[in-house]
């Protein structure tokens, strides 16, 4: 569904992505992990077209995304830190995105209800706490029933209850056969969700493995432990 | 002694006698000759031929194409119902070559157009006491031309031409080497200069209207001791130009709308000892432009809505500019030099921002009427491109606060707080 072919990105002198390649398919739930500054967010933003790579290609359903924008109709994106026009109310932001998406099918308003956002519609974005903003981001990401969900640190800033709701939602969507890409540092959360792990370091993709494969390779019972094991190993190098 | 007295007495008696005979001749001997289709004479030529001095010739309504008409006798030529004398663009129409002649009520048109002998609608040659009154002069090369005339009166004529280029048209009223003339109440338009004086002395120009002429409304060249009073000078290249002349009095005139590139209300060049009093300069590119001008008093004039109120070149000296009103001019005054030999005093400047603590209507702070921008423009005219720009504004403001480039003695020590009532 998404093919990343050898992409590189430099911010000034700093190389953030250095020939990263990967293939993500329908029905997969991918955990994108790695130490801080390894290029996870840049990779995600490249897929979304927010960052333009210096080299390489990204294919979405076998079509290059270069100068394309309609493919984003199929993507729901939840940013790490959601930034919204401060003067607008929650209702206006959601309305605006609805109008821009021009989406005709049934909206997925599950999170809207679960997070009780309908009570907050008149609140201005600038008055919201980080957690509430994250809830809005999550709601918007799922609202249009996209085939691909890209969630950047989805549970950071959410209270445990909200995080749990989100997790269940993710599982539900995964079962519908959607592609889900998650980055997270809270490795323990990933266990129940993830089918594959992509490990990044210094702008490169170190490995891309099935969770089962990973567990057998490292002989660890959970993904979290397996990854910690790998991280330790890389530091020792 | 006695001998001298006798001579004087004799001459006195003779003049008295001659004067008497003139008056007598007019009253007693004058007969009237009529010219017209069904009249005594069919042509003017014939009437003049049969007339004797002090006869009256009445020219009745009609179109007369008789070439050049020479009046060589002291006649009173009177038009009845505006007869038209046409020069067919070939001839000088009326040539007056006799003293004590009056031309009254004619329409004179289409004089010849030649630049060599300056044909005029009505031209006076070497004569005195000629009166030209109530005539209409249309489309002549020169309108009324007086050379070597004395004590002539030009009054209430309408002089109109349709000149397009300066070289191809003469002046409305042109006077050369003459003395003691009176130019009164004429209306002149479309000529090169409305009224032109060269070597003319002791003459008064009163209540004329000179407008839309190609060059100047009124032009003095080497003419001394003249006065022009109460004239209206509108829409000319320059309202009045006074050049190389002395002791000219300029009073109660109205200079307006002499507007355009290099246009002036009053242009003064190499003149001295004049007096400019109670005139109004309104909407001229420059109200007064002075060059090589000395000992002129400029008093009680109003300068309103001009581009430049006064442009005083560095070659001017000992002029007094006193008690004038300067209002709404883009620049009140400008000069091209740093030497200031003229006096400004007790003028009203609408741009003055000083105060008057003792309420005597004289500002307590002296006023510098020169703006820095105007000086820069004087040095390099193209800088006007920056007119009304923020940059020019800033230049002026900074100069007002710390004068450094404008001459410090270009100053009105006693600026008035309120305009003078004029």
């Amino acid at each position, binding site marked *: 569904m998404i093919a990343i072919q050898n992409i590189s*990105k430099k*911010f000034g002198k700093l190389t953030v992505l250095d020939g990263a390649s990967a293939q993500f398919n329908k029905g997969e739930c991918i955990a994108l992990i790695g130490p801080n500054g390894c290029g996870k967010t840049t990779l995600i*933003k490249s897929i*979304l*077209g*927010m*960052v*333009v790579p210096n080299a390489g290609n990204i294919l979405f359903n076998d079509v290059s995304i270069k100068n394309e*924008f*309609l*493919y*984003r*109709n199929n*993507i729901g*994106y939840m*940013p790490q830190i959601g*930034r*919204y*026009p*401060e*003067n*607008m109310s929650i209702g206006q*932001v959601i309305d*605006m*995105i609805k*109008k*821009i*998406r021009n989406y005709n099918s049934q909206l997925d308003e599950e999170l809207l209800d679960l997070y009780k956002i309908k009570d907050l519609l008149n609140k201005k974005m600038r008055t919201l706490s980080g957690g509430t903003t994250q809830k809005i981001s999550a709601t918007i990401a799922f609202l249009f029933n996209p085939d691909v969900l890209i969630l950047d640190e989805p549970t950071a800033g959410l209270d445990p209850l909200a995080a749990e709701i989100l997790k269940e939602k993710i599982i539900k969507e995964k079962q519908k056969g959607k592609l889900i890409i998650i980055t997270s540092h809270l490795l323990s959360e990933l266990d129940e969700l993830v089918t594959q792990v992509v490990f990044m370091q210094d702008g490169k993709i170190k490995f891309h493995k099935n969770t089962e494969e990973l567990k057998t390779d490292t002989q660890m019972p959970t993904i979290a432990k397996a990854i910690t094991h790998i991280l330790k190993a890389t530091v020792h190098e | 002694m006695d001998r001298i007295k006798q001579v004087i007495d004799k001459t006195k008696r003779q003049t008295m006698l001659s004067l008497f005979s003139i008056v007598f001749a007019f009253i007693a001997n004058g007969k009237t000759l009529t010219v017209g289709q069904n009249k005594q004479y069919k042509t003017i030529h014939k009437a003049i031929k049969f007339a004797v001095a002090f006869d009256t010739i009445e020219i009745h309504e009609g179109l007369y194409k008789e070439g050049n008409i020479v009046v060589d006798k002291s006649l009173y030529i009177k038009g009845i119902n505006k007869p038209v004398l046409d020069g067919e663009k070939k001839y000088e129409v009326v040539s007056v070559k006799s003293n004590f002649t009056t031309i009254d009520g004619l329409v004179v048109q289409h004089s010849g157009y030649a630049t060599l002998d300056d044909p005029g609608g009505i031209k006076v040659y070497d004569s005195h006491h000629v009166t030209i009154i109530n005539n209409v002069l249309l489309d002549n090369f020169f309108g009324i031309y007086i050379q070597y005339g004395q004590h002539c009166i030009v009054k209430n004529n309408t002089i109109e031409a349709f000149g397009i280029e300066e070289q191809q048209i003469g002046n409305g009223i042109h006077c050369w080497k003459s003395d003691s003339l009176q130019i009164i109440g004429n209306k002149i338009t479309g000529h090169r200069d409305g009224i032109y004086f060269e070597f003319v002395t002791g003459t008064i120009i009163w209540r004329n209207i000179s407008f839309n002429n190609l060059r100047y409304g009124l032009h003095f060249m080497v003419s001394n001791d003249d006065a022009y009073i109460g004239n209206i000078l509108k829409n000319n290249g320059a309202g009045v130009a006074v050049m190389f002349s002395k002791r000219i009095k300029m009073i109660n005139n109205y200079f307006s709308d002499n*507007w*355009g*590139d*290099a*246009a002036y209300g009053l242009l003064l060049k190499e003149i001295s000892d004049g007096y400019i009093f109670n005139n109004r300069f309104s909407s001229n*590119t420059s109200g007064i432009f002075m060059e090589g001008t000395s000992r002129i008093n400029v008093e009680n004039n109003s300068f309103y*809505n001009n*581009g*430049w109120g006064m442009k005083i070149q560095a070659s001017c000296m000992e002029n007094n500019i006193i008690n004038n009103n300067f209002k*709404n001019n*883009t620049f009140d005054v400008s000069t091209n030099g740093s030497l200031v030999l003229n006096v400004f005093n007790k003028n009203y400047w609408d741009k003055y921002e000083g105060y008057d603590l003792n309420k005597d209507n004289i500002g307590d702070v002296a006023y510098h009427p020169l703006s820095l921008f105007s000086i*820069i423009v004087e040095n*390099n*005219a*193209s*800088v*006007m*491109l*920056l*007119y*009304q*720009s*923020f*940059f*020019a*504004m*800033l230049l002026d403001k900074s100069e007002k606060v710390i004068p450094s480039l404008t001459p410090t003695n270009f100053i009105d020590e006693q600026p008035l707080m309120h305009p003078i009532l004029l």
Partner: protein
Amino acid sequence: MNRLIKFVVLDIIKNRTILGYTLLLAIFSWSVFGLEDNATKGVLTLLNIMLLIVPLVSIIFSTIYIYNSSEFIDLMVSQPVKRNKIWTSLFIGLSISQILAFVVGVGIPLLLFAPLNIALSMISVGCMISVIFIAIAFLACAITHDKSKGIGVSIMLWLYFALLFDGLVLFLLFQFADYPIEHFMIGITMLSPIDMARILILLQLNVSALLGHTGAIFTDFFGTIIGTFISTFVLCLWAIIPFYLSLRMFNKKDL
């Protein structure tokens, strides 16, 4: 696109700064025409204000607005919207609101007090100047990465066009005083939209006679149909080129 423009315009109007700007312009214009009995003088004073304030407000307001819209831009970029559309909508939205402010603030008094032809050309030139400086603000934003730098660049650009350029012109005029550079100056004038706007209006007023020989040459050029066409075209270029460059940069920009 239309929806985005609508969002931008509504957002700017809600902002109140633009209302303050409209009010400021209106107060200036009404007081100018109230104080000056002579319409030409009023137009001149207004021209002065217009050529100073309109570019300043246009460029600074736009720069701040673009930076403050970074969230909006972020949000839109992750949605299925073309980048061109986002940037262009911002530009058109800003232009519409600035033009609206100018027409309401200055245009109405001009139409009431000034001769019609002068009022119309003042309004159109004022609108052009607004749009041009918005375009320049977009370029400043595309070049710089943070808000304070962007505002700094904008102020410098404004200062350059409002002041420094004229200093340069003065320098040139004196350096080449002995040469016939009037035609050359027409070209130079085109390098500053403020100067061009000022001269275009001056030539329409009767004060153009004060411009003397140079003014005559300028009238000969700008007075003709071709001259009017060229000057309008150049003013349009002043809006199009900076915006186009900024658009190209924005399309490649990482968010």
